[in-house]
């Protein structure tokens, strides 16, 4: 990889009034290299005309100090400090709608680049990533352990008070209301649909092999421990099931 050019400080200069230790140029380069080495990078960043069409359509640009054009410019000009700064908060403003990608005359995907930056922020255990993702932990727990992202029992008045006083306009226990859905796979409360043990175990293999569990461990160690326990348990159940199948065959 060629050396990054652009506005790069030659010596370590931190913020003179901040207590935080400055980030070394080597670290900044490592972070940029991680983003740049993803196989999607060259597909998603081809150049930039500074036309602003991405920011024009961006919903996040209306409400946050966020601009997809700025993100693309920082990456394209290899502005290492700017990239690092943007990874602290800005990249989490993106609503991932991909209108920017649909409009860009260069065929860039600023939304996609934001995802690469998010993955890298997690990989480097940035505190900002951990902070932002803390409220997301329930979803991650549900997803990684069951393969469903949102379950009926997660939508409740405590977590979603602003959605109104009634989760259902018919007052009845959740369990009954779910059984009253005429799709048998949906007669569940703890998962969105009934998940087979086999499916869950397959998913665990995918999480392990692709490094997702490692990501999780970096972001939230406690959550990782909880999930590991669940995974071990389910894998034991699966092993038992397979053993029973073998026995049944022999009989």
């Amino acid at each position, binding site marked *: 990889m060629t050396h990054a050019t652009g506005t790069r400080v030659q010596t370590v200069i931190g913020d003179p009034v901040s207590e935080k230790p400055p980030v070394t140029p080597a670290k900044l380069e490592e972070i940029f290299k991680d983003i740049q080495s993803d196989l999607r990078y060259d597909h998603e960043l081809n150049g930039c005309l500074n036309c602003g069409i991405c920011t024009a359509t961006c919903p996040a640009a209306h409400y946050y100090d966020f601009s997809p054009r700025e993100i693309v410019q920082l990456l394209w000009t290899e502005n290492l400090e700017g990239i690092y700064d943007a990874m602290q908060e800005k990249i989490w403003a993106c609503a991932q709608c*991909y209108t920017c990608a649909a409009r860009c005359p260069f065929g860039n995907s600023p939304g996609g680049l934001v995802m690469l930056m998010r993955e890298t922020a997690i990989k480097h255990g940035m505190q900002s990533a951990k902070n*932002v993702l803390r409220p997301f932990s329930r979803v991650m727990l549900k997803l990684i352990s069951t393969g469903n992202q949102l379950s009926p029992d997660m939508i409740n008045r405590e977590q979603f008070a602003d959605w109104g006083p009634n989760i259902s306009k018919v007052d009845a226990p959740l369990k009954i209301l779910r059984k009253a*859905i005429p799709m048998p796979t949906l007669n569940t409360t703890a998962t969105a649909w009934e998940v087979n043990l086999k499916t869950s175990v397959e998913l665990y293999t995918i999480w392990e092999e692709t490094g997702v569990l490692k990501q999780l461990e970096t972001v939230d160690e406690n959550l990782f421990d909880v999930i590991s326990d669940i995974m071990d348990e389910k894998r034991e159940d699966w092993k038992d099931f397979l053993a029973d199948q073998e026995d049944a065959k022999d009989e």
Partner: protein
Amino acid sequence: MDTKTQGKERFTGHGAEWRDAKLSSEDARIATGWVELKVDKRSMLTTKERVEDVRDVMWQLEKDGEIVVHRISEEHHPVMVKTLYGWDKKIPTTRLWHHKSCGQCGNIPGYPASLLWLMNRLNVEYLDETDQTSCTAWNYHGSGIGNLESLAAVFLRNFHQAYVAARAQGLPDAYFYPLVHCGTSFGNYKEVRGYLLHSAKLRESVKKILGKLGRLVDGKLLIPEEVVHYSEWLHVVRDRIAATREIDCSGIRATIHPACHVYKMVPEDAIYDDTINGGNRLAVSTGIMQALGAQVIDYSTWYDCCGFGFRHIISEREFTRSFAIDRKIRVAVEEAHADVMIGHDTGCITTLDKNQWISKSGARPVELAVLADCQFAALACGAHPYKIVQSHWHASPTETLMEKLGIDWQAKKAEFVAYLDQVKAGKQENLYDPRKMITSGPGFIPIARAQ
């Protein structure tokens, strides 16, 4: 051109007060006379020489022995449609494997239930089973936990299961073809498929993983011929559905909210139809609503995102609700005087439906019934508003819409409450034989195909 005399009326295309401008033939000729050649709009000039069709790469890879393509065959009764640049896309209409949506199944169960109910109406053969994982894209886009490899592995795992699912009923592989319910899944799968087809490196690493799961076909990755969204199915069968319509929808003013991940992710793979919106806007959802006789009214923020944000809906809803209320709901109500906002994606329906109540805390509350296209279609075709369409889960005023449709929702609600007793006694009604929902693993009971 002297039509200024009609007061404040404006002739501006699809707006709320649209009228035909009735140009004289001479004026019309001057306005459009520069088009020297009448070319078919959609085949127009953005041919595969100008923009690559990733499916060409796919067929070549199969020829080279790298992958196996899961084909849509004649048995799936496919219908051909045109996409953005006028290219063809094949939409299967029967023998479908339901790829469910987390958010729909968790929050808006009437959404998939309405779809399956419509399929029953049309005698479509399908399978809804438990051996399906979430596409994981909502979590990915929201949190960044995940990567291209995990998304690709999940994609191929689920689509492989669709391929082999019929074995449980003693039927051959490729019997069912997967139909994706969620717009996020659809966009995600389209994008991931593109990367799989372009990157040998990605294919290699995903192949190892799928090999471990025993999910290769002839030792190769299985790639679907098309990635199909349920709204595309609904679009191609819309006339058949409209033929079973029971309720008059002509008085309904509907606004369409098209989902970002459906038409902006891999935009060349979305349906555009010259007979719908003049081929200038996405065809799905508008097509079925017009087929049912409803009026589809344009509004100035048609292209805007709903504000779902993937992450924001969970943990930063000030953004989501501001966007949803100010840029979508309020505009639909004030500009288009809409009776209902129709969508075709989980996240959009959830966002637009659930984030209205909070507007009561401000100075200008606003509300509008929000439904998925298939929910509206089911209602119009006589589906029970609570047993099938499950309207009780909607926070938005679906009751107002039902009143406009002439549905006695209070009576229906009472019927449903009474039905709950039946449910408590374990005697719920189902849209299909529950024994089919487990195809392997714990709880699997092989049943011979009934016919």
